[in-house]
């Protein structure tokens, strides 16, 4: 009897353990993209989608150019078409034109696209033209795993308008083989009298970057440089500047706004905290690779990911690209929180508060919504749900060029990353970095107000002038602040205040 019982238990256990695999294989044979996990059961899994029938219907999608976000959009469109019988037309658009390409038909009351991809900070301008995500998707299992920060980013006043497909934040990436190298630690100490370690502050970052600039420190016969950063105007450089500014300007003792003083709506971007950050950044032009002042995001990913620099900070893509098996610096990189500062500006006392301060920046990321005027809303939401299903998501986040980054609690497990070949300690440092950002109580969220583009463009132009030596940091930021005042007057202070209050509530941990 005991033997029969044991055998039965073994058989049942085997069935339980191996059945998901057998189930998964059925789909991964047809769709090799998910070969690592197979299909993962859920409301929008391959199995579930195969039961839908959208034959004779066409879904139109406007997404970013290939590869970043454009490639996964097209890949999942092809898979979705195979599973459901739908015809899916995917249009690829450069990043700078995504906003206008959707906005022009939106304002004209047309819907040439059922699904529009853009950035999460478009939400305030786009939300009146987007269909809120239906309750059944908001409440489904795969959505429950999305971190509260990213639910907040995809929502406005508690209503979700953007379907979470990506999670973004800026953090520090560094060459572990240099920073942890005892030979270089000794040399750095001997030459500078300071410890070589993961930089805690932007000043340390600058010192180390300058030291490891313009010489061949990895022995590949080519010169390496200190840092790769997004410095090209109109190519998301404003986000890099906010990352550098957060530590100097986001003071946990003075809630009520990072970009504006919520009460008075006075722009804060020319206060001494931001000026200090811009001064550091101007200094950084000395330790970026030649031409680094013109680096856009793609250049930054290529430069750090290709082993050209010691440091970098921005979205996950450069880190994931560096960790891919074909990268020359595979398993030689580390992740850490953005550097902090040893002082932070207190706008109430009008003085510096001394002491270490650090503030993670939850920068905007890829976002996607369904047009309110779309005639294929159900199919559109099914596509998005399928795009972000667990199997696709796990496969997508391991491919740097896809631009799909972690936004689910499950992503913050080191095992997810060791399975795709990352060293355990690197995977751990990566997930710890992301998880710590989620826990931080001194976070900065992107500006999401009417006229966001104008505000960011004015700031970027001013910062670019400072980087190019056309203006001093103070003069540049004064010019930007003046332009922000003008934009405020045009848009209406109260309109901006009302929208900005939503972001401030997130920053002040009230949402």
């Amino acid at each position: 009897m005991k033997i029969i019982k044991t055998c039965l238990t073994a058989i049942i256990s085997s069935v339980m353990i191996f059945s998901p695999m057998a189930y998964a294989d059925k789909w991964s044979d047809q769709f090799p993209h998910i070969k690592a996990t197979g299909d993962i059961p859920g409301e929008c899994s391959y199995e579930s989608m195969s039961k839908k029938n959208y034959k004779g219907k066409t879904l139109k999608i406007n997404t970013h150019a290939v590869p970043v976000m454009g490639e996964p959009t097209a890949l999942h469109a092809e898979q979705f078409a195979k599973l459901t019988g739908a015809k899916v037309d995917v249009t690829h658009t450069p990043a700078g034109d995504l906003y206008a390409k959707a906005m022009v038909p939106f304002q004209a009351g047309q819907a040439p696209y059922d699904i529009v991809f853009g950035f999460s900070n478009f939400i305030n301008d786009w939300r009146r033209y987007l269909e809120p995500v239906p309750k059944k998707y908001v409440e489904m299992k795969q959505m429950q795993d999305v971190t509260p920060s990213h639910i907040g980013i995809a929502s406005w006043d508690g209503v979700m308008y953007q379907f979470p497909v990506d999670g973004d934040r800026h953090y520090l990436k560094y060459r572990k083989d240099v920073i942890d190298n005892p030979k270089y630690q000794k040399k750095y100490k001997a030459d500078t009298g300071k410890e070589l370690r993961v930089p805690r502050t932007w000043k340390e970052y600058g010192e180390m970057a300058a030291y490891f600039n313009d010489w061949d420190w990895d022995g590949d016969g080519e010169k390496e440089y200190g840092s790769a950063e997004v410095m090209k105007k109109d190519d998301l450089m404003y986000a890099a500047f906010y990352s550098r500014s957060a530590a100097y300007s986001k003071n946990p003792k003075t809630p009520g706004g990072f970009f504006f003083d919520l009460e008075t709506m006075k722009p804060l971007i020319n206060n001494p905290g931001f000026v200090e950050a811009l001064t550091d950044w101007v200094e950084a032009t000395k330790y970026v690779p030649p031409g680094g002042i013109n680096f856009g995001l793609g250049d930054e990913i290529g430069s750090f990911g290709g082993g050209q620099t010691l440091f970098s900070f921005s979205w996950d893509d450069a880190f994931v690209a560096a960790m891919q098996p074909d990268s020359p610096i595979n398993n030689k990189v580390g992740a850490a929180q953005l550097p902090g500062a040893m002082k932070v500006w207190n706008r109430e006392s009008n003085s510096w508060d001394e002491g270490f301060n650090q503030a993670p920046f939850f920068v905007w990321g890829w976002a996607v919504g369904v047009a309110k005027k779309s005639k294929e809303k159900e199919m559109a939401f099914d596509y998005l749900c399928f795009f972000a299903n667990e199997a696709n998501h796990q496969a997508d986040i391991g491919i740097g060029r896809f631009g799909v980054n972690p936004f689910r609690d499950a992503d913050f497990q080191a095992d997810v990353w060791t399975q795709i070949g990352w060293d355990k300690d690197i995977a751990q440092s990566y997930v710890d970095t992301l998880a710590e950002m989620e826990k931080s109580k001194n976070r900065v969220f992107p500006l999401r107000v009417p006229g966001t583009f104008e505000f960011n463009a004015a700031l970027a132009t001013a910062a670019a002038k400072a980087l190019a030596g056309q203006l001093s940091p103070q003069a540049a930021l004064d010019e930007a602040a003046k332009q922000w005042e003008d934009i405020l007057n045009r848009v209406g202070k109260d309109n901006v205040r009302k929208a900005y209050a939503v972001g401030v509530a997130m920053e002040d941990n009230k949402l």
Partner: protein
Amino acid sequence: MNFKHKYVFLFPGLFVLIGILIFPIIFTIRLSLSGWNSYTPEMNFIGITNYIRLFTDDPRFWESFFRLSFLSVSTVILQYIIGFALALMVWREIKFKRFFRVIFLIPMMTTPVIMTVIWRTFFHESLGPVNDLLGHFGIGPILWLSDPVIAKFTVIIVEVWQWTPFMFLLLLAGLLSLPKEPFLAAAIDGASSFRKFVYVTFPLMAPISIGAIIIRLIEASKIMDTVFVLTSGGPGTATETSSFYIYIKGLREFQMGYAATLSFTYLVIMIISLTIIAKVLTKLMIKE
């Protein structure tokens, strides 16, 4: 016979003219008097507010306009000189004349955006072949795209490379259509090649030269794709031109009303300045 019928035959042409020329201009003027943007998506009427903003509070537009003037004038002068020299070269009886004529036209036949991407790769300061090559001679790295002064010259290099063939084509056509008699007379008088060029070729080519220069100035003043791909107007605003600035305001920041104001003002300025330039060139180059 009722001559009023003749107007009926004018309608199709007139209709097309109104549709493709008059309507867009009138629409742009109307748009320029509105505050249409991302947060006010309507053709409201705000009077001349946008024009006041442009003339009192937008130095960036004027800076971009003067930068454009420098870039377009300098590129067209260089294109004219090089184009004329090349046209003179293949005008003569030289070996492989047809081959050279085709070779000189190749840059113009390529797609500007794609060629600019290739030039950008060439000039990439740390990964491009130009600096790599110069490095072998101990030169550089030259900041082709990230130095505010050098970046302007990089834009000029690309523009000259791309559009000199156009100038070459027009000038060669002009040279081929010149009458032979003045050259025969100059030869009988024993004029040197230099004197023949100064006193015969150049004056005879003046009307064609003015036409070619004006056509190229009109085109060069719309320079956008090269700047967009090569430098994005940077570093800072060092290579930002009027058309690129209007593009930023209209399609990046979605200030449609204000972008229309910039476009219309720019159109008026260009019509006036090109008319003046044409008159000045005629006075300087064509002697009665």
